[in-house]
């Protein structure tokens, strides 16, 4: 399951920063249910690492295992290379921000931020007061030290919680859905601020969210979790463009998933850079973070673009699709692949003529959701549904087409 994307799996990590947080075969059970199942992760120093997944996928439990609020039933958690088995949370040197911020209601903002300084000297030889002031400035709340938490807005509380967690100078910052109680606009502003603070301090950060868009926007790398295990661990772009499993394909962004039997292998092609076409324009906000380069952190596998590939005809029921598949594919194999809505091009009637009918799909508009910039249209296609994005109003029966290179094969079952 996505093993080629595991960091260090192929030793291709270009970034040789030391590992800050390591989970090694970690499991956690509650009675009969397994919340976290044999998870192995390596998070590097200074990395912004996000655990994303639907509720109950084990992402929060994973965070709590790192913080020391839970003990693993199996496996080892290491912080800074040392096993932290049996080490209580107060000795782990982690900063935690909870979903509800958990500000101490009987203390002022300043007292909240200073609380951790009861147990650790303020870093950088500062006095407590100086450190509190510094942190409140960092989170853009100068002069708020004497306020009570209940005088603050939700966004301000969230930032106080950040300042409090950072005050003692933790090695690792753990954020458990810190935005989910805020409204959408504020959330976008705050996540940019969180990201900026993380960059400024270069602090190793583990971020838990159920919001895949948020995960793509802020992270260096993302672990998409399902049923207690990451399905894929990779930089946001890789997760978006080359989901490792059907679950990832459908969880991250809209997608059209196809499944079928290989009819014919029509010839091998050179590794091409065509794969990435279209994506920059259509990707959700924030994916194109300028500082980031593909696979820069943790060395997610670029397995596909570096290997041999073949154009393959796959019978997906309504039609036979031509897709770019791994080179070792053979007739009779079963393939699963996905095509992003933005890669389903809407054809004008004139265009349709003379095209290879293989990748032309005809369907009738079932519903349209106006999203502002674009409209998400669902087409009835046979007994299935296709999702396309358009800027023009659509109705009736239309044809869409995709390029074989835009199909991403994520499962290959040999005959």
């Amino acid at each position: 399951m996505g093993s080629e994307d595991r960091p260090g799996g192929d030793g291709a990590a270009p970034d040789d920063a030391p590992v800050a947080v390591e989970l090694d075969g970690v499991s956690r059970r509650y009675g009969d249910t397994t919340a976290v199942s044999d998870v192995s992760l390596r998070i590097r120093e200074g990395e912004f690492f996000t655990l994303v997944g639907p509720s109950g996928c084990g992402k929060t439990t994973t965070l709590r295992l790192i913080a020391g609020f839970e003990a693993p039933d199996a496996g080892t958690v290491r912080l800074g290379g040392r096993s932290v088995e049996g080490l209580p949370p107060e000795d782990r040197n982690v900063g935690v921000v909870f979903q509800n911020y958990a500000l101490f209601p009987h203390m002022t903002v300043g007292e909240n931020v200073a609380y951790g300084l009861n147990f650790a000297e303020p870093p950088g030889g500062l006095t407590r007061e100086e450190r509190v002031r510094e942190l409140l400035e960092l989170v853009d709340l100068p002069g708020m030290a004497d306020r009570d938490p209940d005088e603050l807005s939700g966004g301000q509380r969230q930032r106080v919680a950040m300042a409090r967690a950072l005050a003692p100078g933790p090695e690792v910052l753990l954020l458990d859905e810190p935005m989910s109680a805020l409204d959408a606009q504020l959330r976008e502003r705050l996540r940019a601020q969180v990201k900026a603070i993380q960059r400024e301090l270069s602090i190793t950060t583990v971020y838990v969210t159920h919001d895949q868009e948020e995960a793509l926007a802020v992270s260096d790398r993302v672990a998409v979790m399902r049923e207690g295990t990451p399905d894929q661990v990779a930089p946001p772009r890789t997760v978006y463009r080359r989901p490792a499993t059907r679950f990832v394909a459908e969880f991250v962004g809209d997608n059209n998933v196809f499944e079928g039997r290989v009819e014919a292998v029509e010839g091998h092609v050179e590794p091409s850079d065509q794969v990435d076409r279209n994506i920059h324009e259509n990707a959700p906000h924030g994916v194109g973070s300028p500082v980031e380069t593909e696979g820069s952190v943790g060395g997610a596998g670029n397995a596909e673009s570096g290997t041999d590939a073949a154009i393959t005809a796959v019978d997906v029921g309504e039609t036979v699709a031509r897709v770019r598949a791994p080179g070792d594919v053979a007739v009779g194999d079963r393939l699963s692949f996905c095509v992003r809505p933005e890669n389903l091009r809407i054809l004008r009637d004139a265009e349709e003529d003379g095209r290879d009918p293989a990748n032309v799909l005809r369907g009738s508009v079932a519903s349209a959701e106006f999203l502002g910039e674009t409209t998400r249209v669902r087409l009835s296609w046979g007994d299935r549904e296709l999702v396309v994005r358009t800027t023009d109003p659509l109705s009736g029966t239309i044809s869409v087409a995709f390029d074989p290179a835009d199909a991403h094969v994520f499962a290959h079952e040999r005959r």
Partner: protein
Amino acid sequence: MTDGSGDAGGAPGDAAEDGGTTPGDASDAADGDASSAAARTARDRAERRILPALAAGTVLLLAVLFYYPVGTVLVEAVRVDGRYTLEVLVGVLRDPFYLGDLAGLFAGESPLAVAGRLLGPDRRLGIVGFTAYQAALSTLASVALGLPGAYVLARFEFPGRRTLRSLTILPFVLPSIMVAVGFVATFGDDGTLNAALSAVGLPTVDLLFTLEAVVIAHAFYNAPLVTRVTTAAWESVDASAVETARSLGAGPFRAFRDVVAPQVYPAVLMGAALTFVFTFGTFPIVLALGGFELATVEVFVYRLIRNLEYAEAAALAIVELAVSLGLLYAYLRYEARHTVRSRGVRPLPRHRLLPASPSFGQALVRVGVAAYALVALTVFLAPVLSMLLASVTGPDGLTLEHYRFLVERQRTGAAFQVRPWPAVRNSLLFGVGALAVALPMGVVVAVLTTRDYRGRKLVDAVAMAPLSISGIVVGLGLLRGLVFGVEVWGTRIAVGGALAVVAAHAVAGYPFVVRTVGPGLDALDRSLVESARALGASRARALLDVELPLVRPGVVAGAAFAFAISMGEFSATVVLATGTEQYTMPIAIERFIGRRLGPATAMGVVLLLVTSASFVVIDRFGGETGGL
């Protein structure tokens, strides 16, 4: 764990270094400021052990102060002349005097025959049966008196509503013997009831030593309990749930039946179950109001102990315990399934008690509320007012004679006579002592029982058992186990009578601390403690810095409870203080009541004043008791 084995060699060493197990490691870890870091580590280590140490201390204390003494008593039921036998227990079970017709079951008769006789006109209930019967009647009376109160408090808005709601706790902590005196002053031949009746030309009644008086006194105690728990449940009903039901087409009555009632009746059941358990183990009230004619199990246990028939007393206590624990267990099982506390709900809007232009229906409801208020006022105020009145009236009208008697007794009383000042002094000393033990014990148990871990239920049960064991048995156990002395490794260890009384009071009081502190701790967001710990605070430090300040109202309330329980404790004290100098105010009242009512009521007023003053003091020291 596959490649964990490669690091396994290093990991334990690292962990040891973190723990600072050897001086070398500790200094190694703190390169720069070694000395301050070492001091910090030492402090941290000490802090870290406080909570486990306190927990162990609590367990030890419980074992020494409760389980061992109670165990020694109960063992007597099956140990006669040094050999183990079930004779005495079986004897009690087969004795119709105790179990009535049910005894037939244990004597081998067919259940059908027993049932037939129980349903027949000549059934015999026996002592146990009668105790259950009066408890059932008392429960009915308490629910009947308490339920309308909950309705009024939850559904109407009027000045003083909050105060009234807080006051519902008061009867529960009033010293039972004082209440008994109050009821004697109300129902006695020359009591206020008969005075009132003859004033309006009605024939007088003789309620003293009747079941009615006992049941009304029990309702005095327990109806407010029913009111409290029901009001709380009623107030936690979400108005939007009712509104949803109404919008779906349910009428007001249907919405009440389908939405409100299911959330309220578990609370009523809880109030009823607790009332039954409390009144099943009743002692001072029956002793004072029922005499030996209406003896309950507890009164009989006491009588057997005074006759030095320990084996039979213990056997009877076991039967009593089985009934109480069985019921409590059933209740806790039920509670576990029904504790869905909704938080942050919008409560149902309250009606104004005096609407500007009431409709006929509204007026009718208000008339009902007024009638209820009259009954409630009578039941709750009559005993206290009667006691106050009786303390200043003599055969010739108003007099201070009874108080003069107390002063006189203090000055000239013989050594064997009960004098007022030592009683007041002892009560205060024992109260402070019991508070000092019960408060930390209760807080520790509350902390231990609000966290989720395996065996939590067991801890809960072990810690809460003292609530269901009769004070008489605890007192007897302490007397025979600790006061008379225990042989431990060849050394005789004996505890002074005063210490034993403090122990008994602490055991009686700390469950109330648990009950007032626990829910507050439970309701606290656990991420508060986790935040504190991630910031470097040990578990004990987080408790001190974060949890306790946030549940302070509960802690104060618990302290007030523990103190009040100690002030009013009668059952264990009467066993422990027999023939000693350790008598308290309730014991003094009991000694007086047998001979003359006047001084007993005067002493009762003194007890009321001292208890109220202590409440004020605790309130001042502890800040507002908002949670009460």
